[in-house]
């Protein structure tokens, strides 16, 4: 198996739910990068059973907001000189601005030009949820709503 040591300088996105790596690859626009990107599918994980990993060579800004919204269990490690120099923990962000689109046809965001799509975190019994700041409709979590 490949391991982190093989990366001299870069970013490791770990503990991705098995099967989601390709989708994240698209979502984070990694296809547009010139540098080496490794996608590891179905790696063994104590925590998840199976997981996916993405390794990116070189430093870049990853949209942590999107990752925190998709799955706060994902971990991010920054590697330099072959060592982990920083681990970033993800938390569900309080506000999502232009990450997802409101699907409520009665919402002002469905007709108003130039409007930002804003969702706010609310805490329900079944964990964090997001509601549209305008109409309070709950985000149903369908990935096709993600704005790119």
């Amino acid at each position: 198996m490949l391991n982190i040591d093989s990366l001299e300088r870069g970013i490791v996105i770990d503990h991705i739910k098995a099967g989601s790596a390709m989708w994240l690859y698209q979502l984070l626009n990694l296809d547009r990068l010139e540098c080496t990107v490794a996608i590891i599918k179905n790696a063994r994980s104590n925590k998840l059973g199976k997981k996916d990993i993405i390794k990116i060579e070189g430093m870049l800004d990853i949209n942590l907001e999107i990752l925190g919204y998709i799955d706060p269990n994902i971990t991010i490690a920054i590697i330099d000189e072959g060592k982990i120099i920083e681990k970033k923990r993800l938390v569900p962000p309080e506000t999502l601005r232009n990450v997802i689109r409101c699907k409520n046809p009665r919402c002002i965001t469905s007709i108003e030009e130039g409007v930002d799509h804003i969702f706010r975190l609310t805490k329900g019994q079944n964990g964090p949820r997001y509601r549209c700041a305008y109409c309070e409709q709950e985000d149903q979590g369908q990935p096709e709503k993600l704005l790119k």
Partner: protein
Amino acid sequence: MRHLIDPLDFTVEEIEALLDVADEIAADRQAFRQVCQGKTLATLFYEASTRTRLSFEAAMLNLGGNVLGFATADSSSAVKGESVADTIRTVSCYADICAMRHPKEGAPLRASRFSRIPVINAGDGGHQHPTQTLTDLMTIRRRRKQLGNITIGLCGDLKFGRTVHSLIKSLARYEGVKFILISPEELRVPDYVIEEVLWDKGVPFVEAEDMELVMDQLDILYMTRVQKERFFNEEDYVRLKDTYILTPDKLAAAKPDMAILHPLPRVNEISIDVDQDPRAAYFEQAQNGVYVRMALIMMLLELASPAAAMAKDGASIKEGR
């Protein structure tokens, strides 16, 4: 600058202060007839709601102010197709405060972000109608002398009724409030309201299907309409509709000082035989709606009531000497 978009935009203290002014107005309306002299209210009604618009206009005229606006988006080519953001920027030049009714949810919030004048949400789709909530709160407080320590029965369509959800959220902030949620299975309060408001704040509530069984416990009975189109089939509607119509015999077990509220207009969910009952408070609500909107306009324009203004002037004259 403040707006009123969501009923929870105001703190409990601010609502108490607002209702105090509304009570002052109810006691002596004449004293307030010049408070808004030279001020203009714009009523921007993108959908018709004559009742609400007249209530706002009456409120501003009672305060000695002026009113301009439009009553439907159709009648106003100026705003047709224009974004809410652009409209409010323009209206900010003509008026000192505005009340906006819009079929799209969140439109008044969007407007408030671009406005140079206070924006009042006069109803946005099926979402919020905060001045209706203030009216309900005023009526409850006038009847009960306080907003806490009440058992309130909400009856009818608790699923789609926005006034019900807003009232639950608002009253959940007071001590000693207990809810009895009376509805058919199909029209129960949505789970998210129960989870995010009642469970979250630890507010006691029970759900019931028959108002007669709980009638003797209620301090307030808030009636809403059960609409035929909310049911999946005709039989269910026919079977249930009479259960949710308030009649004098259903009131037999009610407390003598219970108050019956309804956000009007009513169709048949309260029998007209109940109108003469001293517990019927729903016609007071229309009157209270004007008073509470007067108090709201004053609050958002930061205008003091005449008595308070006089006391302040008196104090400054004294200081001047």
